[in-house]
């Protein structure tokens, strides 16, 4: 996918001025934060479950080679095929090769962030194959040719009027004066449109929420059931999964599932949870004739053993972005690539380079809310800071910032000189603000004063006053 991450600031500027987006973002609190809080409240062992989730993932990552091989062996024993793909190019080629070999014309797709990472729709279209998104949110984004703005609610940036407008524009065979009375009417229309596409599809592509080593299974969760139709109706099922989706056992997967829906949507469990193991066996009522897993690395194995390894615990629940005050202001598109919010701020620099995505880990107040709601306790602020360190080491930090830091560091390391400088600074600012106690404008502080006043200092520094008080007390005694 093409990245606009370097333009984060401009993206954010547009997002803040976008009335429709701002309206959509007001749903974050009731829709995500409130529901998660309620779900967590209803499960007394939730905090302990977070530790269990973290430990399962840590154990898996520490033994990832073993679990990947075990899993791959079990996939093959069940009649499936694993395509080991080091890069996004490898993965695109592998998907296309399967589709071309079976003569696919239409490919249905369940929601998958890996497919966004691969920009697989564009790739298939370039080769004459029609991809059809079947998740409702992804479906409308395909109609509008927009990328997702959220990892579990891809069309979160849209309002109901956008839906109606897009449906009228796309579904020209239906009565133009039809009325959408409620959300269900939109759903019904999409369902009718998609039903024919499900039946016509030659290949179904889904993502995977988890891969299970002991059985060779892949797991998806959906609320619409579209994933099941995508993967059971066509002859060929392709799973797109990255290496960190692995968990050792079915029991581990169950623990992770207990965390996932609660953290994501505040449901106890998603409406559909589907385990897929290999191809249709004799006597099975349904299932594909071919089962392929495109196993993507794309830079992830290079995170193992580094300060970013913990990021590979992520189960893509979106709790971090749902609770992030920065995401809440700018929305997902501003981040400029596939993964927005705090998890994106850590993952994106790994996948497209910190030179491209350096703004993302900087655009955080380190308020720590993300880490406090992460179901697998990923220290997201800490890793954003590590990215800032890498930037600094590689001299990617803007030169004005470096100069200011160096100047400040020079004084801060010399307390005597620092006292002298702060005494002057506090005095001058205090004098400037003597009438109102604040300034509305100050040279070089336009960033601060554009939207707020600058309260001015009392005038004397603490250390100046403290020294004179000490002298006075000594004189008095």
């Amino acid at each position: 996918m093409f990245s606009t991450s370097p333009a984060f600031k401009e993206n954010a500027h547009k997002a803040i001025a976008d009335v429709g987006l701002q309206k959509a973002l007001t749903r974050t609190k009731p829709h995500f934060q409130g529901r998660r809080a309620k779900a967590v409240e209803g499960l007394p062992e939730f905090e302990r479950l977070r530790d269990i989730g973290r430990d399962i993932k840590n154990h898996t990552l520490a033994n990832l080679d073993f679990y990947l091989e075990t899993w791959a062996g079990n996939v093959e024993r069940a009649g499936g095929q694993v395509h080991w793909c080091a890069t996004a190019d490898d993965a695109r080629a592998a998907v296309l090769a399967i589709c071309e070999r079976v003569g696919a014309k239409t490919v249905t797709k369940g929601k998958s962030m890996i497919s966004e990472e691969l920009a697989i729709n564009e790739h298939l279209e370039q080769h004459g194959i029609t991809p059809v998104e079947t998740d409702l949110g992804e479906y409308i984004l395909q109609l509008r040719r927009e990328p997702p703005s959220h990892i579990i609610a891809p069309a979160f940036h849209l309002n109901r009027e956008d839906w109606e407008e897009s449906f009228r524009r796309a579904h020209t065979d239906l009565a133009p004066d039809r009325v959408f009375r409620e959300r269900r009417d939109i759903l019904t229309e999409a369902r009718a449109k998609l039903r024919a596409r499900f039946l016509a599809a030659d290949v179904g592509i889904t993502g995977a929420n988890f891969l299970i080593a002991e059985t060779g299974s892949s797991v998806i969760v959906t609320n619409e059931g579209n994933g099941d139709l995508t993967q059971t109706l066509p002859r060929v099922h392709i799973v797109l999964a990255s290496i960190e989706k692995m968990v050792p056992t079915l029991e581990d997967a169950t623990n992770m599932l207990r965390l996932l829906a609660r953290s994501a949507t505040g449901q106890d469990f998603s409406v559909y949870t589907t385990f897929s193991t290999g191809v249709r066996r004799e006597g099975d009522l349904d299932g594909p004739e071919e089962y392929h897993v495109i196993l993507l690395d794309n830079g992830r194995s290079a995170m193992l053993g580094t300060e970013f390894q913990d990021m590979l615990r992520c189960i893509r629940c979106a709790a971090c972005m749902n609770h992030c005050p920065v995401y809440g202001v700018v929305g997902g598109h501003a981040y400029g690539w596939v993964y927005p919010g705090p998890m994106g701020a850590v993952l994106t620099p790994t996948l497209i380079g910190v030179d491209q995505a350096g703004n993302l880990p900087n655009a955080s107040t380190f308020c720590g809310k993300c880490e406090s709601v992460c179901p697998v306790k990923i220290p997201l602020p800490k890793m954003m800071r590590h990215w800032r360190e890498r930037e600094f080491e590689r001299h990617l930090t803007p030169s004005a910032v470096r100069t200011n830091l160096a100047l400040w560091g020079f004084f801060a390391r010399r307390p005597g000189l620092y006292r002298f400088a702060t005494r002057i600074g506090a005095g001058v600012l205090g004098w400037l603000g003597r009438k109102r106690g604040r300034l509305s404008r100050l040279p070089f502080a336009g960033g601060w004063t554009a939207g707020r006043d600058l309260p001015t200092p009392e005038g004397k520094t603490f250390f100046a006053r403290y020294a004179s008080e000490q002298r006075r007390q000594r004189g008095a005694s």
Partner: protein
Amino acid sequence: MLQASPRVALFVTCLVDLHRPTVGFAAIRLLEQAGCQVEVPRAQTCCGQPAYNSGDREIARDLGRSILEAFGGYDYVVVPSGSCGGMLRHHLPTLFDDDPNLRARAEALAERTHELVSFLTDVMGLERVAGAASGSVTYHDSCSGLRELGVKAQPRRLLEGLGLTIKEMADPEVCCGFGGTFCVKYPEISTRMVADKTADITASGAETLLAGDLGCLLNMAGRLKREGSAVKVRHVAEVLAGMTGAVPPIGEAG
């Protein structure tokens, strides 16, 4: 065992030093009232967060080393800020991962370091502070104090003990958008965040906004004053120490 009169070093913080010395004096008064002997080591400037959070570990380590020198010999180190307190308590040791000696010293310091209000209640066992006050306040839970140090109920308990009414704002735990250098690196986002915050503050109907971190307070006061709000903004220590007469509210002239 808690010593009868522990020796406490005050870590003033660079913002209190530069901007609002009264908070430092309020901290000294509160600590002395609680029975501490307070000293203010001279060789202190800043906890190092501006460098640490900008990826410059070298400056952060240098400042960290001088903090270890200046604050090594006390029973406790007390900070009138959750943010700087969090830096000393949780982050300073990680700067010395490659030096076991400094790391051990930093960990020892971290264990003795506390944010001011939680030190008074949780370590000194204070149930209430001297004096009385009236009126309504709303309390913003600054992020580091809340999430790194668990400061939440302590200031509210002491404020209510003074006779103040707490009118909670809609979401006191959401970040105000200050974020250190964030507020000048991403001013537009920061301004939107603080505008959301001040809307909640105004809706609370409280006369005064309090918090335990000067950075957040300057941000929120700056926005409230720009909006023409009459809400008064103060550091919690000024109110607890009964020193509101010593200095006008933040962003207002005397």
